[in-house]
């Protein structure tokens, strides 16, 4: 155990001190911060025009609205309005737009059967229709004017414009006890951690073999300690990287997005302690399974250029596991989803979601966790066995047949 911690500590320190680790982490953090700032950057860029709101000239020279068009300013629309009852032609509007006095104009005219809105902009590129908020605002003001003329009582007015309230209910007895988006996000984070962090276990083991330090290492401690220590060290390093990214993403979201956006997306208050514990357990166990699988592939190759081809199958397994869970989430009561929540390569992605949906039974959770633990022990045992036999296998990549031979060979 002491040796395990020494190997893990050394591996962890070696990993986080590397320039490649520091630079890649920094680049990702910068991308995250910039990503959350895109709305602000866009606003800043537009902000060069002092006020970002478009200025719209509303022309009602027939006085159709009888002066009530001024009320449009009280509706808090994202425009600045100039209202005119003068006779303004298309050419006049064109001149004003060219002089940058206004951005666009709506000329309202009334014929026998309809009220016609003529929306004039500088260019029709990117403008396909009259903005709906403007149309409904003008419509409402006109309707209000006409209703007022009917001299209705307050009750009659209220019945014409009722306040609707909405409530959602389900027929299923089990309740959703979490936040769908938060759990899906966590699945994505786990996938990222496996796909971009856990694979480093294999490169770490292969690099050591390339540097031919293996003989010194295996005579200093046992192969079991090396495999588990390296997996632990790199695993914790990878998790630290993911944790830093998630933390920076959360802080950035809180700081740079409009107030309340983060809370609206990830409502932590809906996540129960049981769900949080189960999700954490699955995250850690899932990460461990994949990290050990990468330790196995790292043991079979001895040249850095072979790592990618050896890791390919594990990456495919991770993708299959993720998508199996993701697509069956749409139908959590299907047999395929039950299978995905028990099958060890997909259960870490799937089971937290089922628990959140309230469709997972205690038995399913226990069986699923037991299968994950057995898988971890099995993969660890095979990895250590292959590692012990393959460490001096310099220069060649072991194929499946070699691996099976090593595993079956009791003398090894």
């Amino acid at each position, binding site marked *: 155990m002491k*040796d395990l911690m*020494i*190997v893990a500590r*050394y591996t962890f*320190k*070696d990993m986080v001190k*590397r320039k490649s680790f520091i630079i890649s982490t920094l680049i990702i953090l910068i991308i995250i911060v910039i990503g959350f700032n895109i709305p602000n950057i866009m606003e800043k860029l537009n902000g060069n025009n002092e006020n970002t709101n478009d200025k719209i000239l509303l022309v009602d020279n027939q006085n159709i609205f009888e002066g009530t068009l001024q009320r449009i300013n009280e509706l808090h629309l994202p425009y600045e309005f100039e209202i005119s009852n003068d006779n303004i032609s298309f050419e006049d509007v064109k001149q004003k737009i060219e002089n940058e006095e206004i951005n666009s104009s709506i000329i309202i005219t009334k014929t026998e059967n309809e009220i016609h809105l003529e929306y004039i902009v500088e260019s029709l590129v990117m403008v396909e229709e009259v903005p709906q908020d403007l149309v409904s605002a003008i419509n409402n003001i006109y309707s209000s004017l006409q209703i007022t003329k009917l001299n209705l009582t307050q009750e009659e007015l209220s019945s014409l414009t009722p306040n609707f309230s909405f409530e959602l209910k389900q027929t299923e007895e089990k309740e959703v006890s979490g936040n769908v988006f938060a759990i899906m996000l966590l699945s994505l984070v786990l996938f990222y951690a496996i796909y971009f962090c856990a694979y480093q276990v294999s490169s770490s083991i292969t690099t*050591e073999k390339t*540097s*031919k*330090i*293996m*003989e*010194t*290492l*295996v*005579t*200093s*401690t046992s192969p079991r300690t090396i495999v588990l220590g390296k997996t632990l060290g790199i695993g914790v390093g990878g998790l630290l990287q993911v944790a830093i990214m998630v933390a920076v993403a959360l802080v950035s979201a809180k700081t740079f997005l409009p107030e309340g956006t983060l809370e609206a997306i990830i409502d932590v208050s809906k996540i129960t302690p049981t769900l949080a514990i189960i999700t954490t357990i699955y995250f850690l166990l899932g990460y461990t399974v994949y990290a050990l699988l990468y330790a196995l592939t790292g043991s079979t190759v001895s040249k850095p250029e072979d790592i990618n081809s050896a890791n390919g199958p594990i990456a495919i397994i991770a993708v299959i596991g993720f998508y199996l869970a993701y697509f069956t989430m749409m139908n959590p009561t299907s047999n395929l989803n039950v299978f995905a929540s028990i099958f060890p390569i997909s259960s870490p992605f799937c089971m937290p979601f089922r628990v959140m949906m309230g469709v997972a039974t205690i038995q399913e959770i226990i069986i699923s966790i037991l299968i994950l633990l057995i898988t971890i022990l099995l993969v660890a045992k095979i990895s250590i066995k292959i590692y012990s036999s393959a*460490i*001096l296998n*310099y220069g060649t990549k072991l194929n499946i047949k070699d691996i099976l031979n090593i595993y079956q060979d009791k*003398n*090894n």
Partner: protein
Amino acid sequence: MGLKVTNVQKSFTGKKAVDSISFEINNPGVFGLLGTNGAGKTTTIRMILGIIKKDAGEIKWNGKEVIRKHVNFGYLPEERGIYPKTKIYDQLMYFAELKGMDKEKANNSLKYWAKRLEVEEYINVPAEKLSKGNQQKIQFITAIINDPELIVLDEPFSGLDPVNTELLKSVILELIDKGKYIIMSSHQMSSIEEFCTDVLILNKGKTVLKGNLKEIKQSYKANKVEISSTVNIDSIISSLNLRVISNKDNDYTIQIQEEIEATNLLEKLVQENIKINKFEIKKPTLNDIFIEKVGK
């Protein structure tokens, strides 16, 4: 106390790499494991240290398995390995701790050997910045940092310049003085002959000669005479039907079958009043014995 290797065998893909090797190291000092390239030296060492499993036989240290729990050992592998990006101090401390040393002792030992092997100035430098010779010295420190009682050195002098070879030799002599059991493998006889008390010569996985080096050499008759003369003595040598192995500026090496031939030659040279600066009857060197035994 010591190491006992009994009838150890190892085959790779049906080919015997090591064929029933047996030897014992009962006293401190250097045991020479000699052989040509591919003779089975490294395989034997790897089996002793448990890096690879033997097919048959027994390897015991004081009657017990050779594992770190039973014997504190150090190993300098033939395949030199080092963490290129890691500082020397960090990697030496790492291996010292893995070998069970506490930090203070490891630190003291590291500083002592770094100074002794003249690499003190590099301990805070990544290994890749060091010359090959200095990297090799660092690997040597890795092998001995934990003050092991059994030290296995596989081709310790390969790749070292003469100055560093002498430095390493002096360290090995220091380790001998400290009563260490050292197994030294090499195919360069001359560089290790001066240390070995016992030797085992391997050829194609089989033992061709083993025993105490001094006794082995004593069992061989003198076969050469080295003479340094002031004049050419070719005619005298040929008059005695002796064969000249080499002659450079009247420094002769002459082959003899019996020591009496050397005595006759010396008498003849005295009779002829020839001034001689050196006259030495020589027994076969380890290199001569090795070449004779492995047939090359």
